[in-house]
C-alpha cells in the first residue's frame, strides 16, 4: 500500500534578484520612500518606512524648515543639500514649488531643517536596505 504524505503548504521562497534589478529597486526606494519594499511585497515595512519618511518631511516643511539648494561656498550647506536630496522626489517637487524657504526667526524652523535632512538620510538607509533584501542578503 502506498501512502502519500501531505505536507502543509509553505510560502514560496524568495528568489534573490539580479544586481541590476536590486539597484533599480534601490533607486526607486530613494525616489519614493518605501516604494522599494512595496515592490518586494514587504507591505508592512514599506508602509512604515513611507509613513515615517513622509511624515518627517512634511513636518519639517510645516515647521518652516529650510531646504538647502546647491551652494558650493559653504560646506555645511553642501552637506545639508546632500541630506535633503536623499529625500528623492518629495525634495525635488518641494524645491520646484518654492517650498522650504526656511524661517531663521523661529526655533522650530531650525528643527524643521534637521527633520528634512534626517528624513533624507533615513531614506538613504532604507534604500540601501532594500538593495540587501532584494539580493537575498537579508530576509
Amino acid at each position: 500500500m502506498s501512502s502519500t504524505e501531505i505536507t502543509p503548504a509553505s510560502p514560496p521562497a524568495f528568489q534573490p534578484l539580479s544586481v541590476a534589478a536590486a539597484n533599480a529597486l534601490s533607486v526607486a526606494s530613494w525616489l519614493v520612500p518605501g516604494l522599494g519594499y512595496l515592490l518586494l511585497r514587504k507591505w508592512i515595512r514599506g508602509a512604515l518606512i513611507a509613513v515615517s519618511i513622509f511624515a518627517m518631511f512634511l513636518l519639517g516643511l510645516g515647521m518652516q524648515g529650510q531646504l538647502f539648494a546647491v551652494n558650493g561656498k559653504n560646506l555645511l550647506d553642501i552637506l545639508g543639500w546632500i541630506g535633503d536630496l536623499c529625500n528623492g522626489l518629495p525634495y525635488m517637487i518641494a524645491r520646484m514649488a518654492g517650498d522650504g524657504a526656511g524661517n531663521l526667526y523661529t526655533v522650530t524652523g531650525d528643527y524643521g531643517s534637521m527633520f528634512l535632512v534626517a528624513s533624507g538620510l533615513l531614506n538613504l538607509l532604507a534604500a540601501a536596505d532594500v538593495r540587501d533584501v532584494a539580493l537575498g542578503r537579508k530576509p
Partner: protein
Amino acid sequence: MLAGLSLALFAPLAVVVMSQFTAVIIFALFASVVFAITLREEPRAQIRYGAFCFACFLVGTVIAGWILYFLQPH
C-alpha cells in the same frame, strides 16, 4: 504641473508649532522605526531594537539638556 502638485500636497499643511520636547519625541519615534526595520532582521528583534533606540534618543536628549543647563553662564 509639479508646482501644482506640490501646492496641493503641501499647501494644506499649516505652520506646525510644537515644543522642543515634542519635536524630539516625534523625531525619536520615526528614526527608531527606520533604524529598527533596516538594522534588524526578525520582527521581535526589530521591536526590541526600535524600543531601545527610542529610549536612547529620549534619555540622551534629557541628559544633554541637563549638561547644557549647567554649562550655560548664569
